[in-house]
């Protein structure tokens, strides 16, 4: 393909991907409780409504708490796992890596059902703690992948240099490896946070009737009455995702994080 054709093709696909979001953003600006596009009686009242109406405020708060805590859990579990796999690199360590990557690779319904029967069995079905831990396990893959990538980029001679300069094992970890991994831990956290906010099926199966999150609230509204607030939430979620990934792209190397090795610096 020629250069122009390539750019044209990429642009068309991106526009198609943007179309539903544009429509939803338009819908969120309707003055009335109707989903019209182009919107009528332009107004931002539904944005205010999200933060005022307790029907939506509670799920918003739930979603934020779950995302913040579960992503922290995911990073806390992923870091020692990735470090161990990196430093040992034997069969057992590789099996551990597969275990860390598996939760996110499988169809989420399977994990969701697994979590459901698990929490029912131990009597924690319907509690927010159950949702948080489930998300923490489900999303552990993302920091495992980003931190492992970070470790793969750590030059072994940095570790050796630190050792020859008098640093013990633990000091090498603290003064060399962890500082180098910080950006990868932050990206892993951001990925996990955004995905936890958007996750529906696990939150639904584990505590859908007691701990409503925003996706669950939207799905319920799809059945029992559309409102422009759904558009508002969608716009905010897209914005948050774009902000998080944009920051990673701005301060990190997103192409490398996603597996590209051959990227020019121009």
């Amino acid at each position, binding site marked *: 393909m020629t250069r122009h054709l390539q750019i044209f093709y990429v642009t068309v696909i991106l526009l198609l991907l943007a179309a539903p979001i544009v429509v939803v953003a338009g819908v969120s600006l309707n003055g009335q409780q109707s989903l019209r596009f182009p919107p009528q009686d332009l107004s931002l009242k539904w944005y205010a409504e999200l933060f005022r109406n307790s029907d939506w405020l509670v799920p918003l708060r739930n979603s934020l708490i779950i995302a913040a805590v579960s992503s922290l859990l995911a990073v806390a579990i992923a870091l020692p796992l990735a470090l161990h796999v990196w430093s040992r690199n034997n069969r057992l360590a590789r099996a551990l890596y597969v275990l860390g990557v598996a939760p996110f690779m499988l169809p989420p319904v399977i994990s969701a059902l697994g979590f459901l029967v698990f929490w029912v069995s131990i009597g924690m079905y319907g509690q927010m703690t159950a949702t948080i831990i489930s998300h923490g396990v489900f999303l552990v893959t993302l920091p495992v992948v980003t931190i492992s990538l970070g470790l793969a980029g750590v*030059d072994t*001679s*940095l570790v*050796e*240099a*630190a*050792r*020859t*300069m*008098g*640093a*013990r094992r633990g*000091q090498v970890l603290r*003064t*060399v490896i962890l*500082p*180098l991994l910080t950006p990868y831990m932050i990206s892993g956290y951001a990925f996990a946070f955004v995905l936890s906010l958007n996750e529906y099926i696990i939150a639904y199966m584990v505590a859908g009737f007691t701990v409503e999150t925003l996706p669950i609230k939207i799905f319920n509204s799809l059945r029992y009455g559309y409102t422009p607030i759904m558009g508002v939430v969608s716009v905010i979620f897209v914005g948050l995702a774009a902000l998080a990934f944009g920051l990673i792209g701005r301060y990190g190397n997103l192409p490398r994080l996603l597996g590209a090795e051959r990227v020019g610096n121009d």
Partner: protein
Amino acid sequence: MTELSLRRMTKRFGRLTAVEDVTLDIPDGTFVCLLGPSGCGKTTLLRLLAGLETPTEGQVIVAGEDQTTVPPEKREFGMVFQSLALFPHLSVADNIAYPLTIRGRSKAEVRERVETLLDLVQLSDLGDRRIHQLSGGQRQRVAIARGLAIDPRVFLLDEPLSALDANLREHMQVELRQLQQRLGVTTIVVTHDQKEALTMADVVIVMNEGRVQQIGSPMEIYRDPANAFVAGFIGTSNLLPCTLNTDRSIEVFDYRFDVEEEDRLKSDPGAGLVLSVRPEDVRLEAPSTGIPAKVIFIRDLGESIQFVLDQGDHEIYALYAPSARPDIGLGEEVGVTFAPGKRVVFPA
């Protein structure tokens, strides 16, 4: 008084023997170059000294104490890595301060020492820079300063100048040598560049296939190579198959000549030996004398003229000063002889 000794050191990686039965003693304050082709085991030997590898057999002894099983952080050595291994998350000053802060030295002491070191490597104004903001030569200096920060008992450098371009490399060779002489620290540099080794070292250790081939001053190594490998590896030598007869005569191809007083015989008489002659000791004469050969290439190197001769099975190199250039052209047949007293016979 730090004397560094290796006793019967052997290192195997699986079935590969990287270092085999190396024994050597390095006196205090010596500048040593470990020289050899890539894969000869010189880097492994350095890593064994540093404690980054554990020997399969043998001992490392520093100032009379066995250090073989001491981990690298307890050896009080300084090391510069081939990749330099500067920490990208730390500033220049913090890189140099690293070995001091890891030892819990006081802030004031660290600051003073870092300033001294920055002065030493002429980077006084760049302490706050990040590593990626420095040029190749500047990074080199940071790595050297960092390696010297604790006044190490031994300073180890693994191909430290290999990433620099030719001009800068020569400059840094001189600078490194001067620095070492000023500080008097025992220094061991791994290099595959013989010119670098001959420029810097008090003692050159030539290695090949995991074994030490020769230990000596640069002059000894160049003038009196211990074996055919060293003769071929250091400078250029013509290495030709020869026979040494019991009547003290040498036969090369069909050319036969008597051994002179100054010629060196490093082998008992026999067939299948190697005659080594430097190109500057090769003489081109009329076709009737010596080894018949044909001139296939002439090249003016500025300070000398090089002739490449085809003997049939071997190429022979001859070097003349421009003032002594013989009147011989491309394609001419000549006879090759060797300057008496400059001929060395090695076992193959």
